[in-house]
């Protein structure tokens, strides 16, 4: 690894910024100077029509600047986007209207919207979409890349720092494009592995009556058609996998904090919370709602 992608991009932007700023200042300076100095005094100025040597000189300067940036660009592209032949992604992200499905290749973890990665390791992302075009973008962690249905694209994801990084879908994808945000959690290797182990456990069982009532409602009310509560790779994925729903700090693509109140509001009337979302409106009696909320918020 030479430079992380972001540094390359920032350096390019800095060089560009300097050149652009100089050009801009020159333009403003000369406009200002000429309009002051050559303000109409009622005389007819000399009718000169240009200066070819000057123009050619300018073109040469412009070509030099352009060549410099072209070389920098080609080099930058190469270090940011060099993907091995026959790539095998470490982490597959599948865009859905309006949430992100994540599948870890090696461990088999299935999750959504909150992506965990270990610090300091280059991860090959495989991106695609289940419906329309979306675009992966975490501003602090490198480039953006479109997620296109029927096509798989690859890029590197890498962070030197631990912490949480926010991103957003950046290709217009319909009603809730604005609310298709994402969070990447960069952890130490140990924390990451602990998290993975937690995610790999099968869904929790409990003898708690309310919990089991919630489970029953979940199964009866067709929630399972879209959501799965299992780590089986072939399970339903029309909606986010909920096996360890309560281990996520936010839900609905980083829109709401994951607490009982917000969850209740969502289940009561999804369209009220995130209008357009591809989850139907169920009309629950108070008792079922209570049980569901209890059930889901215990799926650690």
């Amino acid at each position, binding site marked *: 690894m030479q430079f992380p992608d972001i540094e390359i991009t920032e350096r390019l932007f800095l060089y560009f910024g300097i050149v652009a700023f100089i050009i801009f200042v020159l333009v403003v300076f000369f406009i200002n100077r000429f309009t002051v100095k050559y303000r109409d005094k009622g005389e007819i100025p000399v009718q000169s029509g240009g200066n070819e040597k000057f123009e050619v000189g300018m073109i040469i300067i412009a070509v030099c600047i352009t060549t410099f940036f072209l070389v920098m660009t080609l080099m930058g592209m190469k270090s940011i986007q060099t993907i091995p032949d026959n790539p095998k992604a470490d982490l597959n992200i599948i865009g859905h209207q309006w949430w992100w499905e994540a599948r870890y290749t090696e461990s088999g973890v299935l999750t959504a919207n909150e992506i965990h990665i270990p610090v300091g390791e280059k991860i090959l992302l495989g991106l695609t979409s289940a419906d329309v075009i979306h675009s992966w973008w975490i501003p602090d962690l490198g480039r953006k890349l479109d997620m296109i*249905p029927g096509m798989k694209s690859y890029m590197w994801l890498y962070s030197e720092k631990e912490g949480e990084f926010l991103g957003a879908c950046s290709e217009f994808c*319909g009603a809730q494009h604005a609310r298709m945000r994402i969070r990447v959690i960069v952890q130490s290797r140990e924390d990451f592995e602990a998290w993975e182990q937690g995610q790999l456990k099968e869904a929790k069982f409990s003898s708690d009556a309310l919990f089991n009532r919630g489970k029953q409602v979940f199964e009866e009310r067709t929630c399972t058609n879209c959501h799965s509560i299992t780590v089986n790779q072939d399970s339903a994925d029309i909606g986010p996998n909920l096996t360890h729903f309560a281990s996520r700090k936010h839900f609905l693509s980083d829109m709401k904090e994951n607490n009982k109140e917000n969850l209740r509001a969502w289940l009561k009337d999804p369209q009220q919370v995130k209008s357009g979302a591809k989850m139907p409106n169920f009309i629950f009696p108070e008792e079922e709602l209570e049980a569901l909320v209890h059930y889901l918020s215990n799926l650690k």
Partner: protein
Amino acid sequence: MYLWLALFFFIIGGLEAMVLRAQLALPNNELISPETYNQLFTMHGTTMIFLVLMPALIGLGTYLIPLMIGANEMAFPRLNAFSLWMTFMGGTLLYFSFFAGGGPDAGWFNYAPLSENNYSSSHGVDYYLIGLILTGIGSIGAALNFVTTVLTLRAPDMKLNMLPLFVWMMFINGFLILAAFPLLNAGLFMMLIDRQFDAHFFIPSSGGSAILWQHFFWAFGHPEVYILALPAFGIISEVIPVFSRKPIFGYKFVASSTVAIALLAFGVWVHHMFAVGMSNTVNGFFAASSMLIGIPTGIKVINWIGTMYKGSIRMTVSMMFALAFLIDFTIGGLSGASFAIVPIDWQLTDTYYVVAHIHYVFLGGTAFGIFAGIFYWFPKITGRHLSEKLGKWHLWLFVFGFNMTFLLQHMLGILGMPRRIYTYPDLPYWKILNLISSIGAIFMFVAIGIFLYNIFITLKKPRSAEDNPWEAWTLEWSTPSPPNLKNFEQLPPIHSRRPLWDLNNPDNPDKRLN
């Protein structure tokens, strides 16, 4: 007629923009629903491009080209009327969608498969497709007319290298339109077939290609950007020399850089698609061509500034709009060049940085050019001068509001705000920057009010403009203001690029070119 149409839609598109900015003024605002927001920004962009800038430029061209080349009429007057009505019909159909279940909602570039039936089930997109096919036919008709008129109806003594630059640029523009719009219309028809007859051109789940649409659209779309820019360049190339009392600096370079732009314009479209994930080779090629196209554009800016050097500058409203154009278009051009640096594009495409960029080229560029042109030719077209005093209010408020609205949006993009979002979380600085931007829009709104008032009161005054109030030198200024139905009874002698200059300065004429 074209100009009235453009003005009408400018007001509508502007009102749409005001609603958008009101929604975005504060984080997590729920003034309008996401569905409404998406229809409004789609209609705003589509309106401003196809129903405001295109008709305004075609209108100026239709009115001025015959006058500037000493012809009495366009080559095909009926085609001309046909084009106008096509544009009008297209616009009407587009807006009819609101009464037929909802406007188009997939953005002005209408990406597949979001724009296909499965994901956009109202008829909005169908109206978008048909509406744009019609305006496209209108534009093609107009372009044919421009090219033919310039080729066949020039005054006998006027050689091609003596054309006023506005005419030259409209002429080149004609070719651009003729090559670009059929691409768009082909794509639009294919999508219409997809939507109406269940074909699968752009539907990946059944064997089509989503990316194919993008290629069609941008192979049209990038030339379109220059189609909107060249006429404005033409206007600026008339206005700055006249108000500097000097011929243009480097006529040959301005004219030939136009041709270079027109040719290169067809080889740069992938720079709208760098984030799609094509290979470095493809992206690198288009990065190179996109950087190259910056050179002729930069040369033009240098020439315009060079024209003022040792001139005798009159600060009319028209000239001031031309200078505002120079400064703001430079910003737009530079931010555009940054997208050719692919890694920067990978960060900033589809963010507010792009929103800022498009408005700096379309509004700070083309629209300021059109304002300069309107203030310049208004006396010729109507026989009356727009008020310079109101004009200055209009100018300063608009330029101030414009920069207030859009300058800081570059920052928003860098901070990570994607475009086309109806609302945003309350992240550091996002709120204040958006609020400033929305307040800036109010200044523009007031400025346009003043502009409308200016037109209104001016049209009520008696005609008083002289034939050649600006002491300009192209042929249109030898006719009465407004010109008679038959433009020219008799043409002045034409031996150079500035026939009226030669007439008025017999002791110091330009070099003879014929």
